C-alpha cells in the first residue's frame, strides 16, 4: 500500500471519529432543548448542558467508591461501553472495510450485544444505598414480611436488561438484516456497493418498513421514553447507572451521545449506502441523520407514557413482525 493511501485512510478514520464525537456531544442537547422543551412549552436546559457541560462537570468531580461488590469492574464498564461504540463506528468507516469479517453485520450485531450485556453487569454490580442499605425501623417494628430476601432496584434493572437482550432489541437486529437480504451479503462494503449501483435500500418498500423497525429498535437500545424500562423513573430510577459518580458518570453520558451518532451512521450505511467518511460530502448526510433521529425520537417520547411490559411486549412483537415482513418484502 502506498504511503499516501495510508495517510489518506488514517486521516479519514481519525477525522471521522473526531467529527462523530463532536456531533455526538451536541445530540442530547438538541433532543432536550429544541424538541422536548419546545413541545412541553418550557425553556429547557442550555443546548450544551446535557451532552457537554454535564460530562465536563462530572469529569472534574471527586470520584467516590461505588457501593458495589466489584467496584473496579463496575467503574470500568462505561469505559468498556464507549470502546465498543468506538469500534462499531470504526468498522462503519469505508477505509476499514479491508478488515473483512469485522466489518460485517454479524460483527456489528455481536458488538451491540456486548453493549447490551454491559447493562446487565452494571445492574447486577450496583448496590445503591437508595434501595437497600438504608437502615429503617420498619423491619423491627412488626413488618408484615420481616424475613423476605431483599433486592436492589438495580437487580430489577439487570433482569430487565436480560429481557431486552432476549426480545426487546429484536426489532433492531431484524432491521439490520433487511439490507443484508437485499444486497445478498453480510459485508458492509458489499451493502454500500449494492446501494451505489441500485439506489438506497430506503427507497424500496422493504427499506421503508426496515427503516421504521430500525428506528423503533434505535429507541429501545437507547432506552428512550417510552421504552425506558431499564431506568424508569417510576420504579428503578437510574437503573444500572445509579452508582456511577464523577468521571464514570461522565463516560456514561458520553457513551449515550456517541451511541446515538453511531446508530445513525449505521442507518446511513445500511439504508442509504452512505458510510461516514470525513473526506466525503456524504458525512453531511450522516450528520443530518444523526440529528434527525434524536429529533424524531424526542417527538415520540414527548407524546407517550412509559411502557410497562404490558405495552412493551406487543410493541416489540408487532415491530419485529413488521421487520420480518420487511425481509420477506426484499424477495418480492
Amino acid at each position, binding site marked *: 500500500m502506498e504511503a499516501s493511501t495510508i495517510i489518506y485512510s488514517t486521516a479519514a478514520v481519525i477525522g471521522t471519529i473526531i467529527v462523530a464525537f463532536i456531533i455526538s456531544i451536541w445530540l442530547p442537547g438538541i433532543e432536550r432543548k429544541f424538541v*422536548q422543551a419546545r*413541545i*412541553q*412549552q*418550557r425553556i429547557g436546559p442550555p443546548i450544551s448542558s446535557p451532552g457537554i457541560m454535564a460530562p465536563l462537570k462530572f469529569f472534574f468531580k471527586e470520584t467516590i467508591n461505588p457501593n458495589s461488590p466489584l467496584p473496579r469492574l463496575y467503574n470500568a464498564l462505561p469505559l468498556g461501553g464507549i470502546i465498543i461504540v468506538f469500534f462499531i463506528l470504526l468498522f462503519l468507516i469505508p477505509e476499514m472495510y479491508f478488515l473483512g469479517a469485522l466489518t460485517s453485520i454479524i460483527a456489528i450485531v455481536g458488538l451491540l450485544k456486548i453493549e447490551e450485556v454491559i447493562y446487565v453487569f452494571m445492574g447486577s454490580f450496583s448496590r445503591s444505598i*437508595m*434501595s*437497600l442499605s*438504608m437502615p*429503617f*425501623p*420498619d423491619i*423491627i*417494628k*412488626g*413488618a*408484615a*414480611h420481616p424475613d*423476605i*430476601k*431483599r*433486592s436492589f*432496584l438495580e437487580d*430489577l434493572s439487570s*433482569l430487565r436488561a436480560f429481557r431486552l437482550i432476549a426480545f426487546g432489541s429484536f426489532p433492531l437486529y431484524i432491521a439490520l438484516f433487511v439490507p443484508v437480504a437485499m444486497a445478498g451479503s453480510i459485508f458492509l462494503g458489499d451493502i454500500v456497493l449494492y446501494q451505489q449501483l441500485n439506489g438506497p435500500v430506503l427507497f424500496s418498500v422493504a427499506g421503508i418498513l426496515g427503516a421504521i423497525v430500525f428506528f423503533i429498535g434505535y429507541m429501545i437500545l437507547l432506552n428512550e*421514553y*417510552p421504552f*425506558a*424500562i431499564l431506568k*424508569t*423513573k*417510576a*420504579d428503578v*430510577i437510574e437503573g444500572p447507572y445509579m452508582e456511577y459518580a464523577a468521571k464514570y458518570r461522565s463516560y456514561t453520558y458520553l457513551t449515550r451521545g456517541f451511541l446515538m451518532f453511531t446508530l445513525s451512521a449505521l442507518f446511513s450505511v445500511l439504508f442509504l449506502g452512505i458510510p461516514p467518511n470525513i473526506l466525503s460530502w456524504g458525512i453531511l448526510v450522516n450528520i443530518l441523520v444523526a440529528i434527525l433521529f434524536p429529533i424524531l425520537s424526542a417527538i415520540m417520547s*414527548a*407524546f*407517550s*407514557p*412509559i*411502557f*410497562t*411490559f*404490558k*405495552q412493551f411486549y406487543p410493541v416489540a412483537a408487532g415491530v419485529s413482525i413488521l421487520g420480518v415482513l420487511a425481509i420477506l418484502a426484499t424477495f418480492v
Partner: protein
Amino acid sequence: MDGKKKSSGQNVIETEITMGPVHPAALEPYRVRLFVEDEIVKDAEITVGVNHRGIERIMEGLPVEKANSLTEKICGICSNVHIWNSVMVAEKGLEIEIPERASYIRVIMGELERLHSHLLYLAHGNEVLGHETFAMRIFYIRETVMELLRMIGGNRVQYGVSIIGGVRPRCELDEMRIQKIKEGMDFIEEKVAEFADRFVSDPMVMSRITGVCPIPKKEALRLAVSGPTLRATGVDMDLRRDMECYDPFDFDVITLEGGDVKANLLMRVLEIPESVKIIRQAIKNLPGGPITDRTWEMQDTGVIKSYVEAARGRLYHSYRLEDDRVRGSIVRTPSMSNIGAMQYACIGHHITDAQLGIVQCDPCFTCTDRAIQIIKL
C-alpha cells in the same frame, strides 16, 4: 379483582423491593416495601414517619390564633383548608357567626385550592406515567390558579386567609380581583377541557391507566377511603353537601365506577368544572358587608370537632380551649385514611404501576406525618 385474591400475608413471596424514603417518583419522603414475584406486587407496606414535625405537640398551650396559623404549616398543598378547619373549630366552640361575605371568600379560596390540588395531582400522575408533556401542560394551567391564590392571599403556598371571625382584611375581593378570577376561570375551563379531550383520546395513556390498580367500592368502604379517591369507586360522598358555607351553591358531586387509575385521574378532571362553577356562583352572588367579626370573646370550651372536605378527602381538626390556650389538638388528614387503599391498590399489579397505584390515592405524606406510635419492645 376481589378482596380475597388481593389479601396480604402470602407465604410465597420471591423478593422485596424497597423504594424510599427518597425516590424521584415520590414528591415526599415515605417508604414503600413492595413484595414481588416476577415484578408483580404480591403485597405492599407503606411507612411514614420520616417527616414528623410534631405540630400538634407544638400547638399545645399556644394562643388559639397562633395555633391556627401553625396548622397552615402542616401542608404545602392544602394549607388553606387546614387553617380554615382549625379556625372553624374555634368558631364552633365560641359560637361565632362569621359574615356572609367572609364565608363566600373562604369558599372561593377553598375551591381555588381544590383546583390547584387537582391540577397538581393530574400533573404528578402524568409524570409518574412518564408523560412529561401532559405534566408540563397541566403545570402551565395550574400556574393561573397559583397566581390567583397569590393575588388573594399574598403567597403562592401559605395564604393566611381565614382568621377567627372571618377572613383577613387584606384578602378582601375588590373589582379588579374579581375580574381576574373571572378571567382565570374562563382560561382554566377552556384549557382543562382541551386537556381532557386529548387525554382520553390518547390510546397509549389509556392503555397504561385503564384497569390498573382498581379499588372496588366495597374495599374502599372497608379501608375508610375518603375524598375523590372514594368517589372514583362509585361512592357518592362529599362533605361539602353537609357544610353550611356550601349551602348557597349549586354543584354536582361526581362519582365514577372502577376506582382504577383512569377513574381517579378522570375524577379530578371532572371535579375541576364543578369547582369553577362554585367559584363563578360565589363571585356572582358575593354579598356586601364586612368580612370580619371581631366582637367575639374567648372562653373555655370542651373538645370541639370539625370536618371539612379538603381536596384530597375528609380533614379532621379538634381541640379544646382552656385559658385562651389550645389543648389536646388532633389533626387527621385525608391521606391517613387513604394509606390502606394505596397498599391495596398496588397488589396484583406490575411494579412499574405500583407508584401509579399509590399516586392515584393522592397521597400527602408530609401532611400525614403527625401521629407517632410508640411500641414498647
